């Protein structure tokens, strides 16, 4: 399995016209014939694209997991679909980080729940008192 798109300097979503012109200027006759069969026919191209998607996904996974030099990843596939090692953080570590952050937030909420409740109660009481006093004052002034 080779990456014909890469070898023809195309992107996988290239139009049929692009492919035709790329084939016309391709100097390697064997590659031209292969690409014409695999990409020239709509059905063939669909099948090829499906596999291409899966294999490039696997290439990405291997790059992220440090498996680009595995024993089962050799030859054309490894040449065309290996990506440079990805410095993205391990997904599992990230998940653990996020869970611990969520846990700490939750704990803080629990710890501050009592004081916050007091503060809100006080604020509500003060608000009601103020409103009551104002209406009373306005009522007295009217008389």
């Amino acid at each position: 399995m080779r990456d014909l798109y890469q070898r023809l300097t195309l992107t996988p979503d290239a139009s049929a016209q692009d492919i035709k012109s790329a084939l016309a200027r391709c100097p390697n006759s064997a590659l031209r014939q292969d690409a014409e069969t695999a990409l020239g026919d709509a059905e063939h191209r669909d099948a090829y694209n499906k596999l291409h998607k899966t294999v490039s996904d696997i290439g990405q996974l291997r790059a992220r997991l440090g498996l680009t030099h595995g024993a089962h990843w050799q030859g054309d596939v490894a040449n065309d679909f290996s990506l440079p090692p990805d410095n993205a953080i391990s997904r599992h570590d990230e998940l653990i980080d996020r869970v611990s952050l969520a846990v700490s937030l939750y704990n803080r909420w629990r710890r501050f729940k009592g004081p916050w409740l007091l503060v809100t109660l006080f604020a509500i009481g003060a608000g009601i008192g103020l409103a009551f006093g104002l209406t009373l004052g306005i009522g007295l002034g009217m008389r």
Partner: protein
Amino acid sequence: MSIARFSPFELLLLKSRSQVDTATLLLLAWVLVHRQQVSEGQRRRRLAQVTAQFRHGHELGPVMGIAHSQDLQAIQLAAEVVRKECSSERSLSILHQAITVATDDGELSLSNHYILGFLADLLNVTPATFNILFHELTGKPLRPAEDPSRDAYWQVHDPEYHAHKANTAKQKADEARAKAEERQRANAEQQQQNQQNKQRQKEKARREKTKQEQAKQEQAKQEQAKQKERRKRQEQTQQQERRRWQQEQTRQEESRRQQRQREHPSSPPDRTTRALAVLGLTPGANRADIRRAYRRMAQLHHPDRFYSGSEHQIALASTRFQRVKSAYDYLMQNT
């Protein structure tokens, strides 16, 4: 750190009673999704069947949904969990399950070929062990994956396409041949006509000539006698001249040959300037300059630099490199 929401798979993993089982479930679902000619219900049933002894304790539906959406991050997370938590026995059993799920009573699809390879690498299973396992489970040896990026694959899997293509090519060739034949015919007819015309003209000309000649012959006979004497004299002088001329020519050729032999090692200076221009130098550069320029150009245009590029780029680079190298070789021989 940005607070992203937890993805569906992360939530599943957090809720799960056994993270390894959930992760394995996703990987098996991923393999199942890439199996062809199986209905969705069959996939679910098969997954439930294989994972009957798992202790994850949640529904299978969401896992299948995640596998269908080809969520790379979820799959990466599952792979990491599996790699982190699995003993060698457990990893062999996971691979066992993956192979049965991928192949039972069917062909191994190409995508699954690569996925199984990925799983084997992930779980640290050597190709030898993997092949033995595959052979035991399916009764068939594991063949190297077929390659749909090659013409040969499609000749086997879609012979109609090639037959059709051959037919169209034949038709085109036939049409071209028919056209060529028509053209030839037309040409032949034209030629025939031309020839006929010419023959008529010739015949006319002949008739006129014969008349004129008869008249002339009488006059000519009288003159011929006089002319013969003159001709003899002329021929003698001409022969002498020819001999002289031939001698001179042979002399000239010899001198030319000698000149060529002398000039050969330093053939026209034009080529030297061109070779220098290829290396980006002006006439009058010395050997050290040439060598330095060659090194620089060779580094710039060496095909190995374009290893990661397309084949087109590599081909261009190698022609450029070839030109630089031949220019350098020429200059080194001739300066």
